[in-house]
């Protein structure tokens, strides 16, 4: 439907370009190049000073030369960007909050951020002209007291831009809570472009957008245990997530290699487990990240992975088995090995303390309990565990070790509820415990959300959906961003090679995987496991690929990456301006010459 309308509008747009230009044209500098919108593509042409046609800058051209202009992710509802650009004055942007409530601080912070985003549209070292209209941004929040994340919160918003007078443009954002309003401001900031021909900021003048996401959970996982990441680099990641309306920063904060989370109740875990005294995340830093995220509509979701993927930090506890066991390949998937000993009662006091520490700083609506890659051989290497199994009249076979795992998970679940003070939704990785043939014996579908990390065609997906489980998709064949580099143990390239290009990320559709059960899919998440990444490589590993995921999860477009390519190239430039160092995906020539870099 939308598509057919678009075809018609295309013709009109070419005609209207002249009109647009009437609004911006003043004969000033003479740039070497300008752009023309022809057949839905902006083409680079030599600037002809004699031409009566006014010159259009690259971004001004792109803003109208495409159904969704420069917007990323593309809106899901009615989208009309109008046909006119107006010059605006960067110093005259006013933000008016219409209804007051508990979210006032968040609204103010988001308003400040909006102004910063606008200023970042201007290239470094350039001072735009300060003639032009003023912009009044009205924020109409129907529930100004909502400040908490939840899986069923309403992120929708409506944006209207229209000229109020010859001196003023009004932009009004309606939303049902702070989070929706925030997304609206993000969209509005993408409608403001810098015109490098006239050295002026421009805004799309007549805009109507109704927008809301398809999936409520849109995440990035960062593993800060295999290698440490600075708090600044994590905040930069959240900044970029906000720009593409991702809403969950899943923090895989511990693993067998290190324990950088500062536990105030069990400080020795950090003391022995961190890579060094400076390579830790103290509570103050975590609270700052959580605050930073909330202002940007990004929940910070902690994971405490257990009972496997533990090791460093637990040295003195006596609660682990097979820590640093050799040869490691017999007891785990990468060095060092280590698993918690579920038979020790003291373990659950430790867990409760860790959970409490996390509950205090993360203030979260969800909790990730890990639960992947448990090795029965590891547990079976302990005499004491064997004895416990036999005392319980269990065997020493695979099924019995699932019982032991379930014993652990049940007790850990109770402690989690106690620590968080509520029965919050819990998330677990797919594993032998979550196999659909027996999962209901262990995990209640109303308590647990399952995060799928196997491939997108794994029959487990359908099996789990049929049994009513809610899923988050992180299928490694499209969403593991660590793939494609050299192996760090052994030879050749790493296990999940090859590298996954943004195109594949874009086309990885949860809806196609879930079919008729797609309402049970909460969303998806890209994972950056950090065996071969740290602060030095972070931006390039995540971006712009995570943005491809963002549009997939926000909009579930029924089109392929080809339709998104021009916008994606612009989005990458935008990320650069936000201070991110994303991977380049094509020569800059392709950004300046749309439609020529086909296969």
């Amino acid at each position, binding site marked *: 439907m939308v598509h057919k309308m678009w075809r018609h509008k295309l013709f009109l747009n070419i005609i209207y370009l002249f009109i647009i230009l009437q609004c911006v044209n003043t004969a000033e500098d003479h740039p070497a190049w300008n752009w023309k919108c022809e057949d839905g593509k902006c083409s680079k042409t030599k600037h002809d000073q004699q031409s009566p046609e006014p010159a259009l800058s690259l971004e001004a051209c792109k803003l109208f030369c495409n159904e969704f202009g420069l917007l990323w992710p593309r809106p899901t509802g009615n989208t009309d960007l109008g046909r006119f650009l107006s010059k605006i004055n960067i110093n005259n942007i006013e933000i008016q909050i219409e209804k007051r409530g508990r979210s006032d601080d968040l609204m103010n912070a988001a308003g400040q951020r909006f102004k910063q985003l606008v200023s970042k549209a201007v290239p470094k070292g350039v001072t735009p002209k300060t003639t032009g209209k003023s912009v009044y941004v009205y924020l109409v929040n129907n529930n100004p007291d909502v400040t908490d994340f939840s899986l069923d919160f309403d992120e929708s918003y409506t944006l209207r831009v229209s000229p109020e007078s010859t001196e003023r443009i009004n932009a009004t954002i309606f939303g049902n809570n702070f989070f929706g309003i925030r997304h609206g401001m993000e969209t509005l900031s993408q409608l403001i472009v810098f015109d490098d021909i006239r050295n002026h900021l421009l805004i799309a003048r007549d805009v109507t957008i109704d927008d809301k996401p398809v999936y409520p959970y849109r995440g990035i996982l960062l593993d800060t245990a295999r290698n440490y990441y600075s708090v600044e680099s994590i905040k930069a990641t959240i900044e970029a997530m906000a720009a593409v309306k991702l809403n969950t920063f899943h923090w895989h904060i511990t693993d067998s290699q290190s324990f950088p989370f500062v536990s105030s109740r069990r400080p020795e875990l950090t003391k022995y487990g961190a890579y060094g005294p400076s390579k830790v995340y103290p509570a103050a830093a975590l609270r700052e990240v959580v605050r930073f995220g909330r202002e940007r509509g990004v929940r910070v979701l902690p994971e405490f992975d257990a009972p496997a993927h533990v090791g460093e930090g637990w040295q003195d506890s006596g609660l682990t088995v097979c820590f640093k066991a050799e040869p490691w390949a017999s007891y785990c998937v990468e060095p060092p090995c280590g698993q918690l000993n579920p038979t020790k009662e003291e373990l659950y006091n430790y867990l409760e303390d860790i959970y409490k520490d996390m509950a205090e700083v993360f203030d979260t609506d969800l909790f990730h309990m890990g639960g992947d890659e448990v090795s029965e051989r590891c547990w079976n290497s302990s005499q004491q565990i064997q004895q416990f199994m036999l005392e319980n009249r269990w065997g020493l076979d695979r099924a019995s070790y699932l019982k032991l795992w379930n014993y652990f998970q049940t007790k850990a679940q109770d402690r989690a509820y106690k620590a968080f003070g509520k029965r919050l939704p819990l998330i677990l990785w797919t594993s032998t415990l979550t196999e659909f043939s027996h999962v209901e014996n262990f995990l209640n579908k109303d308590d647990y959300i399952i995060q799928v990390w196997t491939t997108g065609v794994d029959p487990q997906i359908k099996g789990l959906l049929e049994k009513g489980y809610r899923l988050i998709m992180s299928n490694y064949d499209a969403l593991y961003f660590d793939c*494609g*580099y050299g192996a760090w143990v052994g030879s050749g390239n790493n296990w999940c090679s090859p590298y996954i290009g943004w195109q594949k990320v874009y086309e990885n559709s949860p809806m196609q995987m879930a079919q008729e059960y797609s309402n049970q899919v909460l969303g998806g998440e890209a994972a950056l496991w950090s*065996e*071969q990444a740290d602060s030095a*490589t972070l931006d390039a590993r995540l971006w712009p690929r995570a943005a491809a995921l963002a549009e997939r999860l926000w909009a579930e477009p029924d089109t392929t990456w080809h339709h998104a390519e021009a916008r994606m190239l612009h989005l990458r430039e935008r990320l*650069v301006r936000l201070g991110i160092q994303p991977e380049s995906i094509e020569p*800059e020539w392709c950004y300046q010459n749309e439609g020529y870099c086909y296969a």
Partner: protein
Amino acid sequence: MKSWGEALWRSASANFSRVGRLRRALLLLAAAACTAAAVLYWRQQTDDSAHRPLHSMFAGVEPQWSWICRNDRCERLLASETNVLQSLPTCNMLCASTQLWPQPTGPVSLATAAIRVRSSGLSLQVLASPSRDVTEHLNDAFILMRDDLKTLEKSAAIENRRSDSATRDVLVRVTVNGTGDPRMRQDTDESYKLALRPAGKSLVVDITAHSFCGARHGFETLSQLIWLDPYAGSLLILEAATIDDGPKFRYRGLLLDTARNYFPVSDILRTIDAMGASKMNTFHWHVSDSQSFPLRLQSAPQLAQHGAYGPGAVYTTDDVRAIVRKARLRGIRVLIEVDAPAHVGRAWTWGPGAGLGHLAHCVELEPWSTYCGEPPCGQLNPRNPHVYSLLERIYAEIIQLTGVDDIFHLGGDEVSERCWAQHFNDTDPMELWFEFTRRAMLALEKANGGKAPDLTFLWSSRLTHTPYLERLDKKRYGVQVWGSSRWPESRAVLDAGYRSVLSHVDAWYLDCGFGSWRDSSDGHCGPYRSWQQIYEHRPWIEEIPSVATGVEPWRVEGGAACQWTEQLGSGGLDARVWPRTAALAERLWSDRVEGATADVYLRLDTQRSRLLAKGIHAAPLWPRWCSHNPHACL
């Protein structure tokens, strides 16, 4: 006495494999004995601060771990379980591995004791120098090294720094007996000798070399004998060392393509720093291509005017001079390649307007796949004499800017016969290509004051296959072989006796493995080349010496890693290139017979941390846990 001597000395696993092994061993023993005697003498004279365990210098946060060298490995212990508190870098430096990168090719002996120093305590004395130019370069390169150490020193946490305890001064004495030309040239002898020993209350380092570049490599090695101890919060240096070193290959390069995507000057300067840290000597700057022409030449400003991505995406001649200057102090030549006759684009479209006729054909012609390898297309007009006079001006300015006049790169890859066939259907396009190359060479000769450079490179292509290869003069032309090492034509160039630089796509292309940029397939040259693959690629061992078949001995000048940038922008540069290019640097400098053994992992890991300290965002090899537990991940 004897056991003490053995504990103090260790001989590094330097390259003893060939003839002269015995002689070298004897030399080593002699050197060891001399220096040991000196150390002994010095030890008797010093106050007991030299014997004070390092932990007494520690004045900060309580460290949790101590690393102790046992069985040639640094083992991590709980600090509370041991009475010696030693940081990981210090243990690494004092344990079995030399921690040097690249591994020296001659004998190495290193003390196993460390002494505190301060960057400001280093001073230079030039004992002998063949020219004022060399002396000035030595002074400036020394300051660069000291600045690097200062940066390292500053990175220690403030609370750990102690200013009161004694440090020793280090006097670096340099002797250069050889060429008075400080440039990296074809015939530059890059070898050097380094001897570090205590003398009175200070340390003396003697570096002798035959060129500025050799002496500079000595500085680089010296800086690798100095490290930051995070527990002491200060720099430490080995108290004695002797190293005899020189490269196996004389061309050790990195190509960066700044045309597909633009890289700011600061990125290039940082890359030069990183190259210097691993003793690479050639920055091959693929400055232009069909996508853009960012080099604003004074002799032909129209090229950048029409070809650059925008006003912020150009290199001025001042930029180039700054890069060349930094590179020269790092012992690196800057080899600028303006690729021709293919790989040109909009930069060359102003000819008709300027009355010069068509300088290029097929620019941005569609469908591109008919006329070139990737969009956009474009090829120079081989029949337009203005093309050659322009090239002459370009070449002259490049030579003048870089000061490199003994080596040149003409480009010359991936010419489309179809493009030219459209315009010149009277001539075989291969003949046109050959004619173009001949006339470009003529232009180069004129640009270089009437003398052809000693070695002028072409990329391997159809022109470097039989029957065209034989028509290229071996005395002038060299071939940079980019084809797969398994392709017969890659080998044929070597068998025919042409001087070559190897850049085999199956080993040394750093851009591979990131999927295609034009569709969602896996891309044309995947998978990713790991540092281990780069390190273990030794194509020259496949040479079959033959007297009968007319096959000439191979003349491998060296190798170069290639970073093409269709899918790389400024942000990702460091992590894509480093530490993988450091792996190539050791392959070409040391060419050790062994592959990526455990010691190589440990040394490269240390080299990566050196790069980080210099502000180069090199990718990690593995989880930091593996650095903390050496050998546990191997």
